[in-house]
């Protein structure tokens, strides 16, 4: 427990620090959240009040996008600028000469930033939903069972997203210039994570492809679980794959971090 203390303190410090930028987040979140209104208009047009597409009806598809917007901040993988800067300008030195795990520090930092924002985003979204009139479409999980599993799956998604982000960012150890890998991955991730369209609605081949990749499990899977779109055998298989991906991503993170450190040449000899 004592070992966790320092990471908790990082979370606390980050919350204290990021609370100074609450307003910045509010503005940037609105940019992400406003298109939700267009999504609602679009799907209402496509489905009508009683239409159905795959396992989705109007309510579940709108709830789907609502949750995507809410959770993408915390679980969607992207570069950690802290890591990239620390590697490039030698700021990593500060951590290497202290008894603290750097990946642990970054995870705490991320949680400290994202947890308060998650609550803030939820409030903004609900308010937006009431103003724009789509809050009546939002639905609760079909039962407690699905709710608990989606909660577990969501936590795993955060861990998986974190490890993937860490891995991409730690590639800076080798790629001294350019972020080609990230640009390529961005496309792959937005396709297979369900950011644009629920993976369940994809054609079979594409769906199978997405089932194998880790990215579905950082966003789409827990949400489809919540909505009850994923159930029965698919739930068990999906959750198993998700757990495997979390473990694998963690192992790769460790490997990348260890070999990256070997490569690391502190700046300014």
């Amino acid at each position, binding site marked *: 427990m004592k070992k966790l203390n320092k990471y908790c303190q990082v979370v606390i410090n980050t919350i204290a620090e990021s609370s100074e930028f609450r307003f910045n987040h509010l503005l940037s979140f609105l940019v992400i959240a406003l298109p939700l209104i267009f999504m609602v208009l679009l799907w209402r047009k496509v489905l009508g009040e009683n239409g159905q597409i795959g396992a989705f009806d109007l309510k579940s598809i709108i709830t789907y996008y609502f949750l995507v917007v809410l959770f993408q901040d915390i679980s969607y993988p992207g570069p950690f600028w802290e890591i990239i800067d620390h590697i490039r300008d030698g700021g990593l030195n500060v951590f290497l000469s202290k008894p*603290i795990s750097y990946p642990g520090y970054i995870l705490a930092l991320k949680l400290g930033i994202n947890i308060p924002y998650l609550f803030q985003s939820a409030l903004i979204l609900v308010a937006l939903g009431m103003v724009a009139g789509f809050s009546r479409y939002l639905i609760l999980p079909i039962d407690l069972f699905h709710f608990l599993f989606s909660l577990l799956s969501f936590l795993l998604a955060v861990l998986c997203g974190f490890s993937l982000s860490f891995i991409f960012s730690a590639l800076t150890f080798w790629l001294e210039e350019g972020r080609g890998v990230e640009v390529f991955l961005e496309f792959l991730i937005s396709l297979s994570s369900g950011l644009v369209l629920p993976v369940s609605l994809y054609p079979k081949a594409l769906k199978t492809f997405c089932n194998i990749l880790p990215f579905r499990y950082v966003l789409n899977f827990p949400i489809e679980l919540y909505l009850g779109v994923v159930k029965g055998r698919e739930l068990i298989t999906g959750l198993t794959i998700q757990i495997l991906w979390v473990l694998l991503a963690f192992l790769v993170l460790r490997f990348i971090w260890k070999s990256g450190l070997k490569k690391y*040449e502190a700046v300014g000899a």
Partner: protein
Amino acid sequence: MSNAIVVKNLRKVYKRHLREPGLSGILRSIFAREYVEVEALRGVSFEISSGEFVGYIGPNGAGKTTTMKILSGILYPTGGEVEVLGYFPPERKRDFLKRISFIMGQKTQLWWDLPAMDSFILLKKIYEIPDEEFRKEVDHLAELLNVVELLNVPLRKLSLGERMKMELIAGLLHNPEVIFLDEPTIGLDFMSQEKIHEFLKVYNEEKGKTIILTSHYVRDIEKLCKRIIFIHKGQIYFDGNKDTFIERFTKNRLVVVNFKDRIPESVHRFGKVLNIEDKEVRIEVSKDQLQSVLQGIIKSAEVEGIFVEELSLEDALKEVFEGIQNEKAQ
């Protein structure tokens, strides 16, 4: 006294990749990346006893920071032996990291938007410092550095000098046994430098910690260190007492003469006259000719007083650096 640091034949080779300017350079670096090996340390050896305050100096790129980084576990050496407090630093054992501190004048470990106290609380948890000890240490250090009222002010609102003081507190909270100080006075004004000198001096005397200091400011070294290790091109150029360093690397002495009635015209014969004020003349005289010059002066006119002053560390360093420059030019 036991050795806190033992370094034997330490080597470090960096691999740097080359890229020519322009588009063709970029393309070439993608397909056939060329590397050069840069030898930052070529067999450095020294020992530092517990409680010593050592100035580790040398021109840019001499290998100072590389040595410090190896000693604090940040870099893996290419060859040689290194032991700090009985540990091999690059293993980065928790117990080892808890007993050292690397304070960098150019990198901050404090949170920019929070008061320094919040950063200290995090460090308290990182180093598992007991409450009582933590409070005592913060109070003591903040008082010594005169920043008690600033502990709860967001860091970004502090001046550079105040921030450096906080950085020092942050680095010393856990009572480290070996302290690596990398350019602690960089960018600070004269008064802030003085205060930091004073603090470090008191701290070293009071606690008897082992401190290695690198700095480009001669005054830092002059005020604080008895021993100097001078490194050049990855090799030790000098290791010993500061006074010996000055003695060895200055060819000249400063002679100050107070003449009784008048200054003889022949005074220019004795050496380079630096300045004449009233009846006092300051002359720079070559070390070998000191005896004969002194006799000559006494013979030339009636003298009221005559002293010989050692040149300062700065003068000695100037000589050494000039020597190094000439070496390069040849």
